[in-house]
């Protein structure tokens, strides 16, 4: 692969409430690539996802996160998002009173406002995405994810089932068009049909303009979304990286095989 990786994590150490969770993790994700990050519970997978996104309570004690060659450590979550980073939440929070459509339009317009401000130096008033264009976009992406149109009028994640929440996360990814997307346990809590729909949605979005980091506890989602690279995380570090075959090996041998820590190879 050529050029600077869109996402480069270098020797990252992260503490949560004074306890070190990530202990020198390194990882590179380029556009067009699909990475799977696997690991047992408590290995620090979700901490990594949220650190990348800019969760304010996680403290990077050392190391570096570069996005498109620039450090994001001083950037807030909203700036990282607008720069092209996305995370599908493991537990999306409800925003009562705010409809999915209203929220997505606001999120899209926040991107436009910043782009316009960068371009012209002044933010044009009321120059958001035209309502008609937005409705068409929303309809198209909802169809892609087999979502009922009525969801657009529902309050964001409020009273959503587990499957609806995960689908809504992928919908947001489809609308916001990130360059690098982190899917934090998007497969957890999904029945097989919902998993298939979500995976189809992800597959429809991947391509040369999108790099994906799928974080998962189980190998299951990888039956539907084929990763180019598989990493296994144990105790705050990536223990082993490899190709798709690594996921299958884990599936048959379990994580204990790694905890013994004997067979460590780096590609």
């Amino acid at each position, binding site marked *: 692969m050529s050029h600077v990786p869109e996402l480069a994590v270098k020797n990252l150490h992260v503490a949560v409430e004074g306890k070190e969770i990530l202990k020198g993790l390194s990882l590179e994700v380029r556009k067009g690539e699909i990475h799977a990050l696997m690991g047992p519970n408590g290995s620090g997978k979700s901490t990594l996802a949220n650190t990348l996104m800019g969760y304010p309570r996680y403290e990077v004690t050392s190391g570096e996160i570069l996005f498109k060659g620039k450090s994001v450590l001083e950037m807030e979550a*909203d700036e*990282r998002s*607008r720069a092209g980073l996305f995370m599908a939440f493991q537990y999306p929070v409800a925003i009562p009173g*705010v409809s999915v459509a209203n929220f997505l339009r*606001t999120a899209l317009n*926040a991107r436009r406002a910043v782009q316009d401000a960068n371009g012209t130096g002044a933010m044009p008033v009321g120059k958001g995405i035209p309502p008609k264009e937005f409705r068409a976009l929303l309809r198209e992406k909802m169809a892609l994810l087999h979502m009922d149109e009525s969801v657009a009028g529902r309050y964001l994640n409020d009273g959503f089932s587990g499957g609806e929440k995960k689908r809504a996360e992928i919908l947001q990814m489809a609308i916001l068009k990130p360059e690098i997307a982190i899917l934090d346990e998007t497969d957890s809590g999904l029945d097989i049909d919902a998993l298939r729909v979500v995976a189809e949605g992800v597959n429809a979005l991947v391509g040369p303009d999108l790099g994906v980091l799928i974080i998962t506890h189980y190998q299951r989602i990888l039956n539907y979304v084929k990763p180019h690279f598989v990493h296994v995380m144990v105790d705050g570090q990536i223990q082993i990286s490899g190709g798709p075959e690594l996921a299958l090996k884990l599936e048959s041998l379990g994580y204990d095989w790694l905890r013994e820590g004997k067979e460590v190879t780096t590609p």
Partner: protein
Amino acid sequence: MTTTELRTPTGFDVEWAARAEALATRSGEPAWALERRRAAAEIARSLSFPSREHELWRRTDFRTLEAEVEKLDPFAESPAARRLDDLPPAIRSRVTGDDTSALVIQRDGGVVFERVPASLARQGVIACPMGRALRDHADRLTGTLGGLLESDYDWYVAIGAALRTGGAFVYVPDGVDAVAPVRLFHWIDGGGRLVVPRSVVVLGRGARATVVEELLSETADGISLYAGGTEVYLGDESKLIYGTLQDWGRNVYHYSNQRARLDRGAELQWIQTVLGGRMAKANSYFSLAGPGSQAYVHGFMFGDQRQHFHLHTLQRHLVDHTTSDLLIKGCLKGRARSIYQGLIQVSEGAQRTDAYQANRNLLLSDTARADSIPGLEILANDVRCTHGATIGHVDPEQMYYLMARGLPPAEAQRLIVEGFFAPVLDRIPLENVREQLRQVIQHKIG
């Protein structure tokens, strides 16, 4: 009302009452109404300002106003407006494009504009200034004006009844489903005004209507006081949507007393918003007086800077098989303060009462304060009454989630606050009114 602390303002003297009576006489007010003014004036003279020992005044201090009351002018009037163009821009912008609603527009002490579209007039719907209603529809007012809001409630209500200026009368005959809303406006032109309108709304048996009252002004120098009263009567099986939207300028003290009585099978959708004024105190009481009646109450207060809001609601279940469901939301920034004081009363024998009361508060700053004081008085044994209150700051997890989608913190907070108000906003019956309110909220969020 305790009167131990005798601080009767010298301003309320024979002169004010006498002048109000002379004006009313000249405008052709019937003898019984004049007599009630005199009686109210007597009561006012015997009362003092509400004592701060009183449970409803313990947390709201009108002292600055009290010192000024005697300097206020209860007789300021504006000339009648021939056309909508003669009205203040804020009102004009709110009624432009609305050709179907009935309008009664009050400016300071008097009604300056009224309009009843032919479609409503044909239905027999009345929407007119109280002054004219007392001449033309006296038979409908003898039992209703003062029927729910008694002059001896407190000093402010007493002077309001004695000095009454303006207000509206709305009447929807039996069986009539009013084809368009009735919109009432109150505007205050500046400082130094004392505005005391009294309005009465009557729905006949099976009638249906929507009434929206908006109280607006620009911030001016000098204190003004609005001390209005509203009495709302819902006949058997009638349905009313009633909205009271308050957005006074910051020089206004607001003290409203609104009462509604619901007869058998009647349904009330009550919406109340408190945004403006320097201090605002609102007492809204709902009497479920007929079996099967239902009152749904939704309101919010949104204060900033040093605004002080106090909303007191009373859900009175007087007979069996009645329902009330109340949700009051409060959002505060800066050094603003709100008090919500809610009481559910269930009378003896009012079995199968179903009453709910919820108060949710969102604080946007560390210096804002919200108090929630719920209460239950239950004298029946087969009832379901619940209440709950919450006070909290913006949830950091919600902020993080929205920011992770690219919303700058201010936008994220705006969306959360809008969402917080949505359950109330969604119930506002007129789309343009709802939109206007959204803009006011957005502006206030900053």
